[in-house]
């Protein structure tokens, strides 16, 4: 089992390397000139040249990459020209917010999607299944940012049940930093008011984000459950007298889960990318918002840093999914 994990870990390295090269190439091949922008319209050529040298942007490309890669290994993700901070610091500051959002969305998607898919399969081809198919298609067709906007309109502006945006009101004191997740940290600190506030702020963005994976997970679960139900071993299970409830909830679920698990892992990665839109709508201070603002200012190191961070997270999630798959499906462990 340990070898299995180690092997998967080793496979990550070349991909990571390729990722850094790719992002670096994109950043440097691009026409924009971030230094000139940063220096402002009144800067002289000398000042721009000095800034450029300061950021190491006057070296040949290969040297720049090597310096960058070396820095990466030491945890140096470059420097953001606009926040005037190391990108690594920015990432650490903003990543927890994004993670909290993504986790919340995935939690909703999984908790609702898996039983939903199971139910759709058990009642397959009757009208609830048909309706759920249309609903799923509608869910993935709905642009996340539009949905966010509509949720804001309805719940924050008209009904005024939930806050408009942001993660935590400035006037309150956030709970002590433990995990970076405000909801969990508030629970740990026993601060009920902070917990409720954080949760209320998390609500709408999480819902806006979860719809798409929810629909896909449900369809995936439904499809694999239907396939499992047609397997010989299910007929055998019935023939030896096991109750339908036992068959579905214990056996079929586990069989169907393995296929769905890969989808969950994949979606986690896509959500990490998709937080950009939702964070913008709700002013959620995560790396998505950070990336957007950096891009618009043509500040590249942060964008590379964000892409790297997301890529890395994605790989880690896939590794976890792979391992879980190995736990569920014993045959895989020995490959």
């Amino acid at each position: 089992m340990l070898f299995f994990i180690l092997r998967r870990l080793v496979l990550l390295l070349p991909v990571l390397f390729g990722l850094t090269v790719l992002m670096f190439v994109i950043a440097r091949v691009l026409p924009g000139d971030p230094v000139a922008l940063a220096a402002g319209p009144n800067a002289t050529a000398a000042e721009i040249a000095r800034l450029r040298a300061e950021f190491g942007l006057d070296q040949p490309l290969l040297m720049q990459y090597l310096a960058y890669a070396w820095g990466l290994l030491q945890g140096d993700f470059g420097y953001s020209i606009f926040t005037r901070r190391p990108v690594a610091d920015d990432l650490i500051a903003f990543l927890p917010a994004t993670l909290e959002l993504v986790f919340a969305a995935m939690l909703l998607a999984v908790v609702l999607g898996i039983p939903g898919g199971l139910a759709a399969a058990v009642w397959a081809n009757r009208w609830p299944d048909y309706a759920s198919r249309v609903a799923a298609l509608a869910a993935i067709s709905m642009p996340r940012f539009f949905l966010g906007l509509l949720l804001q309109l309805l719940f924050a502006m008209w009904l005024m049940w939930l806050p408009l945006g942001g993660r935590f009101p400035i006037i309150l004191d956030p709970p002590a930093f433990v995990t970076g997740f405000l909801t969990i940290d508030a629970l740990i600190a026993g601060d009920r008011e902070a917990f409720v506030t954080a949760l209320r702020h998390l609500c709408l963005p999480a819902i806006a984000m979860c719809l798409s994976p929810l629909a896909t997970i449900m369809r995936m679960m439904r499809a694999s459950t239907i396939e499992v139900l047609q397997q010989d071993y299910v007929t055998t299970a019935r023939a030896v007298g096991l109750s339908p409830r036992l068959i579905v909830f214990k056996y079929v679920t586990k069989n169907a889960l393995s296929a769905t698990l890969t989808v969950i892992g994949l979606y986690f990665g896509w959500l990490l990318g998709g937080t950009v839109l939702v964070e913008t709508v709700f002013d959620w201070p995560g790396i998505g918002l950070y990336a957007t603002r950096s891009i618009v200012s043509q500040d590249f190191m942060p964008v590379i840093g964000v892409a790297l961070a997301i890529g890395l997270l994605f790989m880690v999630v896939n590794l976890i999914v792979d391992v879980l798959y190995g736990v569920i499906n014993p045959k895989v462990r020995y490959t």
Partner: protein
Amino acid sequence: MSDAALPPPPESARSLAWRRAFFRFRQSGLSMLGAAIVLLVIFVAIFGPWLAPFPEHVAGGVDTANRFRPPSWAHPFGTNELGQDVFSLVLAGTRISVLAGLGVVVIAALVGVVVGAIAGFAGGWTDEILMRLTDLKLVIPGLILAMAVAAAMGPGIVNMVIAISLAWWPGFARLVRGEVLAKKEEAFVTAARAIGASPARILFRHILPNIVSPVMVKMSLDMGFAILTVASLGFIGIGVRPPTPEWGTMLSVARAYMPDFWWTAVFPGAAMFLAIFGFNLLGDGLRDVLDPRARR
């Protein structure tokens, strides 16, 4: 012995398959709905500029006296912060979105088919290298990649389309490679080689026609998401420049005027949803009908 006495030649297997597929397609209400929506969208995309009641607004003209008028007979979708008719803008935006989406899907398909076909057919090192390349693209969320490239290349629809296509082609490449690999092993290819057909001929005449169907299915399935991505980039502020009307950009601007002037956001957003939904329904229906492996 006149020719009229002869029975009509039997229908070729392929055209029979197409007819059957079309018949099955017609059976599904949802697919027909999708087809109807798509036709509507395409119609508006083509004839939009002539249908818009206020073309001068589309071109950039403003009418500040009429700012923020709620929906009425004169302005079915109301007016925005510049007094422009939202209905006209939405109609014009259809053209942008559809064209951009189409551009993305077509470019991605072309690049993907070429890469995938070469990788699948050549095998060996070529295959390995090309596949690592596509794998890499799947590690970065497409939106972020498209964002980075689009932002770097500067504003404009063309750049945006290229940027998104760059993130999109790996999907096609994988699909085509898989299909080519599968077809390569089939008997008719061995037969063709046995009679001395050149690799190029085998590729073009025998293998490629068989991958048209899955590629087309993927293209139609992807169309909806391509439009979504275009709108997403517009929302972030990358892509088209004003005064070109684009649904995502309209939404981004309209955010500031919520909730009082809700129509400036709701209508473009609804149009966005409708177009994407229609394409997805159509694509889903096509897939059910053309790709027997993906049966519900």
